[in-house]
């Protein structure tokens, strides 16, 4: 069975949590005790319908205020697929939590309140999905019941979305929904006879998963296994996850950043020898030569050698995620996978002049050591990093190499 990871985004009160709660309810993913609890809570709040948002808003402060502050990771499955939905908050000040949820998603659902149409927040969330390179976008026009399922108004919003995204109608999914009433969630609604497309569930069950086809063969070392046992006296294995491409026994490799060359003698997976290791798999590489290699170094298949340019100067697009603004005077830690080093921002291109919470823009960075500088557009798994503020230790920004 396949796994689809979805992030939901939208403005405050667009009904994201209600949408997910409804999806859980209609796919019978809520257990009896959970449903009973929600029904009871709805009654005690004095409302005459079932408040499905109670299925996901988990924090006491969230329930108190009726808003989502941080991401909830919701699991459910149908006969076709398994889903992890990251229910992200709508408030501007919690945009960083939306970025967190979106970073591992293949698909984004952007909610729009049918009464309000496209908002600044819609634009912001759309920009983030583009920055992160999310493959599929679904625009859900929610609360259609409150505009009497009016087709003309829906068409107006659709026009605005097409203009916002500058995209062709065929590459976007747009659907009219009422999460509260259950229109077009798992079955096509009679209230929108003018809509011929699939209901939301059918759509996410059938969306294509885009397989990665990275050319570069890269494994970043996480941990060096040296058992120092009698039985494995000379064992020295470089354990890590294949970031991109694949590795075979016998492959010529180059170590980054030292530049030393060797050959793969053996590949272990948890004690079993294998001949081939694919992207996303963990493995332990044992090399022919006894060369110096530690955590954060990369083993690179020679086919990728020319394409992977080590560099101490990079250009990147960043999204700033902490309350304290970017300080060009201070140093930050840059973490790319398992490698961490010091960095300083040298230039900020155009606007914004400085970076405050949620700002997105282009910068140049000077690094204390070289990193693999493949652009994000070329290799999603390599061309991304975070900046850590050494004062707060907080993840201050996410960056994408250009």
């Amino acid at each position, binding site marked *: 069975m396949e796994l689809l990871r979805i992030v939901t985004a939208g403005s405050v009160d667009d009904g994201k949590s209600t949408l997910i709660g409804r999806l859980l309810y209609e796919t019978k993913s809520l257990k009896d005790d*959970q449903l009973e609890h929600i029904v009871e809570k709805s009654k005690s709040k004095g409302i005459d319908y079932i408040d499905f948002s109670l299925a996901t808003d988990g924090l006491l402060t969230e*329930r108190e205020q009726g808003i989502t502050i941080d991401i909830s990771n919701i699991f459910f499955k149908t006969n076709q697929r398994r889903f992890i939905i990251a229910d992200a908050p709508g408030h501007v000040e919690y945009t960083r939590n939306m970025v*967190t949820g979106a970073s*591992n998603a293949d698909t984004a659902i952007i909610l729009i309140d049918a009464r309000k149409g496209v908002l600044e927040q819609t634009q912001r969330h759309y920009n983030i999905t583009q920055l992160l390179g999310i493959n599929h976008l679904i625009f859900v026009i929610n609360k259609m019941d409150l505009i009497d399922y009016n087709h003309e108004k829906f068409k107006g919003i659709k026009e605005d979305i097409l203009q916002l995204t500058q995209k062709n109608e065929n590459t976007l999914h747009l659907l009219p929904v009422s999460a509260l009433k259950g229109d077009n969630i798992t079955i096509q609604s009679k209230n929108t006879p003018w809509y011929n497309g699939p209901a939301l569930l059918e759509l996410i069950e059938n969306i294509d998963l885009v397989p990665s086809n990275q050319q570069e063969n890269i494994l970043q070392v996480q*941990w060096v296994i040296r058992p120092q046992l009698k*039985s494995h006296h000379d064992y020295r294995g470089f354990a890590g996850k294949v970031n991109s491409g694949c590795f075979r026994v016998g492959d010529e490799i180059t170590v980054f950043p030292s530049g030393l060359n060797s050959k793969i003698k053996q590949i272990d997976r948890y004690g079993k020898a294998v001949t081939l290791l694919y992207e996303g798999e*963990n493995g332990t590489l044992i090399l022919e030569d006894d060369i110096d290699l530690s955590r954060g170094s990369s083993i690179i298949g020679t086919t990728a050698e020319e394409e992977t340019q080590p560099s101490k100067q990079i250009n990147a697009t960043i999204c700033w995620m902490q309350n304290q603004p970017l300080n060009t005077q201070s140093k930050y830690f840059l973490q*790319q996978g398992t490698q961490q080093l010091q960095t300083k921002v040298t230039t900020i291109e155009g606007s914004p002049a400085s970076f405050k919470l949620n700002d997105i823009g282009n910068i140049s960075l000077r690094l204390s050591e070289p990193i693999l500088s493949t652009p994000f557009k070329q290799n999603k798994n390599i061309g991304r990093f975070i900046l850590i503020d050494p004062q707060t230790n907080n993840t201050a920004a996410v960056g994408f190499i250009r």
Partner: protein
Amino acid sequence: MNILKQLEEEAIYIIREVAGQFNQPALLFSGGKDSIVLLHLCAKAFYPGKIPFPLLHIDTGHNFQETLNHRDYLVEKYNARLIIGLVQDSIDQGKVQEETGKFSSRNGLQTTTLLDTIEELKLDACIGGARRDEEKARAKERIFSVRDDFGQWNEKLQRPELFDILNGRIHTGENVRAFPISNWTELDVWEYIKQENLELPNIYFAHKREIYPREGQWMPRCEFHNIPEDVIQEKTVRFRTVGDMSCTAAVVSNASTVEEIIHEIKASAFSERGARMDDKRSEGAMEERKKVGYF
């Protein structure tokens, strides 16, 4: 890649990140099914080397003897090192007071013992078996969850966590709780136990036991609560989740193999933590405990 393999790869990657980024990590190990899965994943992550950190069990003194025996058996089998923190010690030192009342439990007290042990051993990371499908507050937690020097979880100030990049930088005195099986469901855990042929304490499987009804659940008879003889009955039950004897309910079941349990869970209309009285104390019982340092 099938889902179970995807989840295993993700978990092992996280475990290696913990080992790589922290000086003094430990694996929280209770002898329950989730921590048994974690122990197995840790062993795989560093094979043929030894697990490069100790196991830590906070023993409330209210545990099932079967779980403790199995815990010790596994520690030996995996050639691991076990450190035990005793809640009784915290009580004897006057740091916490035993709850009184009819259904007293030591569940809340273990937080103090855990935090003291973390401080004493200077642990900077604890690997735990929490899963996001268990409970609403758990569904909010990051993979690397930073706790301040009081062990507190600040739910409004969680760090962004992007892609598979895990930021483990902390200030002295702070520590991180790391959750490698965050994205697993209860069923995944059982499917994995089956696939890897893992051994579990026998209380997970159907057995005869003296139980009594309490708030719509079947509680095991234990020495900590005074229950009138006339309400106690013997039934064939098993435990779906294993915490303290004083706060874990049994389910009536004939499932005596892993396959039968998987079948039972698939058909069950109730959630796993429905059997945890400690979660039922209030609406935000888990969140409130997490804020003060519960794992």
